[in-house]
């Protein structure tokens, strides 16, 4: 019996439809059926992960206007399922899932903030990314992209003013009650960290209520770096979105490039040439090493190990030089294209890459000798920020942070893309799920990434790097300059109002990003501009657990816990 048949057997009438396009099983159901179906799927069918929750706005003329999209993942069977719930414009509310999945808390708050869809029964439904006093819901199609509501300076109003923010005792009242502190009294000290704090690399704000040095309750505020990736994507061509994906996770931009481009390729139903897939793997893994080097370097520095930071930045610099030779940019690479790559690898890349790896291995072993058995480091990391496997899954952890809790989920293994199924590599696991394990997993992963690159370099095939498909890749320049067909084809792919047009439909494509499953959900309505691009950011889910992780810890422990979660503001706040 298929999964859908089982669902229809249990819940007869409110299921509207199902389809399975492009390999994604989708069930469309009514909002009344949602809680029951979700409970059934989670408990009976082991869909442990709520990977993502988002809303799609079809525009004012569509009825029902909104569509809530839930992405579920059954970790043991490696099965994915998408649930879609239509929501009417005049009555925008949905039942909450906070009782089933813990990361639903922030996901629902974000959906309320961005789209104005209420969630009945949500314990604390308030804005997440925008500030109090912000009027309207910016990701709705009828909110103009450039309608600004500043808090200071020209154009600010009393409603949006900075001074209107609630004070800390008021903000933490609810969290304190939840923590069992009925009467805060005088012995509670309120402490604000951030949004620009030396230990918070990036802009995030932690508001804590302290008893002595112990955190009894806290509230984490994000959204200080909200740059409207999704709104920008809805107003640019498919090609034009690629530079924006660089700046989502700016520590490993190449993986983001690959993820977005592969989601669009999935809409087209094409696969890229062999050589292109090898090069994408090589560059993704180099990016992963950069990501881990930066993460370890930054939190080591925040714990006082400045030497480690200098060593690892030295290692990162040699990789940046390598990436710069390939892509022309150190950081914002924009290297992939829909259907291929911007260009081939430069001559001599093989040798340079191996030389860089020799240097990096030396730097990592130096870092290892400085940190791994260092008494101070060990004491501050071991047993701090512990998260159990069950909690990590419920919070939607993926990547090194999940694997440190002992759960072997790696997108490269569970749903292999590109050429990962042909490569020989291991997935390092932790046992305790504390800071120290997260550190060790990252150190071990860098070695595995280097192994992958070396294997891919050894059997890198010859051939073209771009697909010969005129719907998405630009024609060769000699055709553009010498034939009218070539010129028209170029024009059609480049000009405003034309561009690359995937067939109408939707695709979710997950890749293994630097700190977890990075998924792009792209909806096409057949025009040259994406109807919706949603990014499933790995660190969003981890930062949603930060408040839970630091409860009961000392104030100084916030620094390593926050550091090992590897927050990247660009993708956290979108």
């Amino acid at each position, binding site marked *: 019996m298929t999964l859908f048949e089982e669902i229809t057997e249990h819940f007869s009438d409110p299921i509207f439809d199902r389809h399975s396009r492009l390999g994604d099983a989708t069930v469309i159901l009514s909002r009344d059926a949602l809680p029951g179906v979700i409970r059934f799927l989670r408990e009976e069918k082991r869909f442990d992960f709520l990977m993502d929750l988002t809303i799609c706005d079809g525009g004012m003329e569509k009825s029902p206007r909104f569509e809530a999209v839930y992405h579920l993942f059954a970790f043991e069977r490696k099965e994915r399922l998408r649930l879609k719930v239509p929501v009417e414009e005049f009555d925008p509310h949905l039942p909450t899932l906070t009782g089933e999945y813990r990361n639903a808390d922030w996901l629902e708050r974000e959906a309320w903030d961005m789209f104005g869809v209420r969630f009945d029964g949500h314990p604390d439904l308030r804005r997440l990314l*925008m*500030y109090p006093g912000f009027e309207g819901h*910016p990701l709705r199609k009828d*909110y*103009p*992209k*450039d*309608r*600004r*509501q*500043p*808090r*200071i*300076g*020209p154009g600010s109003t009393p409603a*949006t003013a*900075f001074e209107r923010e609630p004070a800390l005792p008021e903000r933490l009242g609810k969290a304190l009650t939840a923590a069992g502190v009925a009467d805060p009294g005088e012995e509670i000290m309120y402490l604000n960290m951030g*949004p*620009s*704090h*030396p230990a918070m*690399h*990036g*802009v995030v704000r932690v508001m804590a209520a302290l008893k002595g040095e112990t955190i009894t309750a806290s509230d984490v505020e994000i*959204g*200080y*770096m*909200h*740059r*409207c990736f999704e*709104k*920008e994507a809805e107003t640019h061509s498919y090609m034009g979105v690629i*530079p*924006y994906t*660089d*700046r989502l996770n*700016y*520590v490993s931009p190449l993986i983001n490039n690959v993820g977005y481009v592969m989601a669009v390729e999935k809409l087209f139903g094409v696969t890229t040439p062999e050589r292109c897939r090898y090069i994408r793997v090589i560059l993704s893994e180099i990016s992963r090493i950069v990501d881990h080097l*930066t993460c370890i370097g*930054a939190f080591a520095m925040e714990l006082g190990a400045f030497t480690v*930071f*200098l060593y690892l*930045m*030295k290692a*990162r*610099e040699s990789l*940046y030089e390598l990436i710069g030779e390939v892509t022309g940019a*150190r*950081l*914002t690479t924009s290297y992939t294209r829909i259907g291929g790559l911007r260009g081939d690898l430069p001559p001599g890349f093989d040798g340079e890459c191996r030389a860089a790896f020799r240097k990096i291995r030396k730097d990592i072993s130096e870092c290892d000798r400085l940190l791994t058995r260092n008494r101070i480091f060990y004491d501050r990391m071991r047993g701090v920020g512990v998260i159990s496997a069950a909690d990590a899954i419920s919070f939607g952890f993926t990547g090194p942070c999940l694997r440190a809790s002992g759960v072997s989920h790696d997108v490269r293994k569970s749903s292999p893309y590109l050429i990962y199924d042909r490569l020989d590599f291991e997935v390092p696991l932790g046992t305790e799920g504390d800071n120290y394990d997260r550190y060790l997993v990252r150190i071990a992963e860098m070695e595995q990434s280097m192994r992958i690159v070396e294997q891919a370099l050894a059997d890198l095939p010859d051939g073209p790097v771009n697909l010969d498909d005129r719907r998405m890749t630009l024609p060769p320049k000699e055709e553009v300059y010498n034939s009218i067909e070539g010129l028209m084809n170029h024009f059609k792919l480049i000009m405003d109002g034309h561009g690359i047009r995937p067939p109408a439909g939707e695709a979710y494509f997950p890749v293994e990003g630097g700190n977890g499953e990075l998924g792009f959900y792209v909806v096409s309505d057949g025009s040259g501009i994406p109807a919706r691009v949603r990014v499933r950011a790995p660190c969003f889910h981890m930062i949603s657990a930060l408040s839970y992780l630091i409860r009961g810890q000392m104030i100084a422990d916030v620094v390593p816990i926050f550091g090992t979660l590897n927050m990247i*503001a*660009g993708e956290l706040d979108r």
Partner: protein
Amino acid sequence: MGIEQLIGRKALTTRLDAAVGWARKYSLFQYPFATACCSMEYMSVACAHYDIDRFGAGLPRWSPRQADLLMVVGTVSHKLAPILRQVYDQMCNPKWVFSFGVCATSGGFYNNYATVQGIDTILPVDIYVAGCPPRPEAVLDGLIKLQEKIRNEKQQY
């Protein structure tokens, strides 16, 4: 009789403004207000490879009270703008502002409801460095330009 004979070789004469300017230009204590992608390049500039220390600006201060150079590194959103202004207000005089990258300078390619279209709408800026993100060499060039400006300024004491 020249002044050299009067004071021998034990002193150096100069204008006080020039002396103070020279001292200030080589003792910049920066407050890195790092938000986004540019902070990756900021890290590169601050580390051994590009070594901002050669220019006398190697000591980041994590408190506005101890800093005299506010480096705004990355995108500033409307949610963050009042905090940036507060940090600037808390810094002691004399102080300078360094706009690092196009997002801080003009909003970059984020022309939307959340992003401040240039930090000069909320505070005065001394130097703008272009690039998304700027290469470390560009940052160092901007720093040298700022040092020139500091040296030639009418100093406040």
